[in-house]
């Protein structure tokens, strides 16, 4: 994974460490980042995105506590190998990740001038369409 794939928005008002958590957890949960894949080191993220090392370290610590990444001493941080990191999340964790994904979606939509209501309507319509197709 490249650091350039992490796009931060410094004017959104969302703390940067939360944005990093949202971006990485989104990629891990969606499968864009495979288990065992190396994620950029704190030094790389810091240098490339001009953010403080403490910020990246805090984001990685949160991801590690959520069981999404693991640190191998001397080798760096990797996406958690265990499948249960994704499939056996507790209800609370699932809710947390849903909130994170939704906040990220609303933030990105807001930057494009799309309101939260529009996003909600779109999701409802999409859900209805996919349910209809499945039937």
């Amino acid at each position, binding site marked *: 994974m490249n650091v350039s794939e992490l796009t931060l928005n410094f004017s959104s008002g969302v703390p940067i460490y939360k944005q990093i958590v949202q971006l990485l957890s989104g990629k891990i949960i969606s499968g864009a980042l495979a288990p065992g894949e190396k994620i950029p*080191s704190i030094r790389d993220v810091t240098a490339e995105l001009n953010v403080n090392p403490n910020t990246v370290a805090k984001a990685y610590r949160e991801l590690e506590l959520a069981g999404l990444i693991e640190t191998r001493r001397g080798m760096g941080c990797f996406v958690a190998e265990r499948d249960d990191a994704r499939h056996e999340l507790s209800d609370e964790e699932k809710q947390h990740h849903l909130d994170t994904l939704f906040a990220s979606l609303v933030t990105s939509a807001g930057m494009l001038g799309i309101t939260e209501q529009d996003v909600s309507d779109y999701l409802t319509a999409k859900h209805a369409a996919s349910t209809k197709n499945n039937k």
Partner: protein
Amino acid sequence: MITSDTMIAGAPASVKSDSSIASVRRMLKNSLLISIRDSVLLKLATVDLLLVVFYIGIFLCGLFVFPALMGQPCHTEEELNAFYNQYREPVKLAVLLPIALTIQFLGTLFTNFLLLTVDSEIIRVWNGQKADFKRGWRTAASHFWSLVTWSLLVTPINIAWIASMCIVIPVLTRDRTVNPFKMLWRSVLLLLKIWKEFLLGIIGMLVILYWVFCLVFGSGAIFTAISSQCPPLVAWFLLSAAISFSMVALCFCYLFCNCYLCGQYIKASEGVEPSPESNPAELA
């Protein structure tokens, strides 16, 4: 395992539960550390301050040159006052006001530009990088239009440089909006997140600046007293030493204040207290 205790030296995980005073103390200490340690940053601040002094010099010269251009050269302050008083008439004011506003706008733009060069590099040093002269200037140049619109908004307000220095310019280092009202709004939103630390920090900085200025003026008085009883050559040497010392102290204070303000900006925008010290093992 990224543990809270080993995360980053100087900023343990207890940061969150820390009192504001402890946080401010740590930030002031780190700001002092950055100001002392990075010589490039001090040079950049010195060059910027010298350029501001140079601009003020040109402006003051302009005050004397303008009457000469109008065919009424002034040599004393009374003559100068008399010359400019005649421009209080509405018709003549209409001529002079745009010129005065243009000069003030250029001055504001220039100082904001210089402030951005310093602030962008300070943020990099907070983030564990080394300061770079050219990069600072390039960053400021890349925000030129944002600086122009902000300067246009604040030109008529004399004390707007305080707002620029304290809240807007640090935000501009990473925000590319050209709408000055948006800049101000975003800056205020960030400031609201850290208002307690911000106020406490201002008090802390004032205390430190008070002692620095006591030192500067005290040493200035001693230099003057000694030089008045010395041969002219020695007196000139002492005077230049006193001026150099005052300049260094002034640059250092300017840098220190900006380091603190940028540190607070990082804390507000990134949600984590910054620290220039990092544990190399954790960064790998």
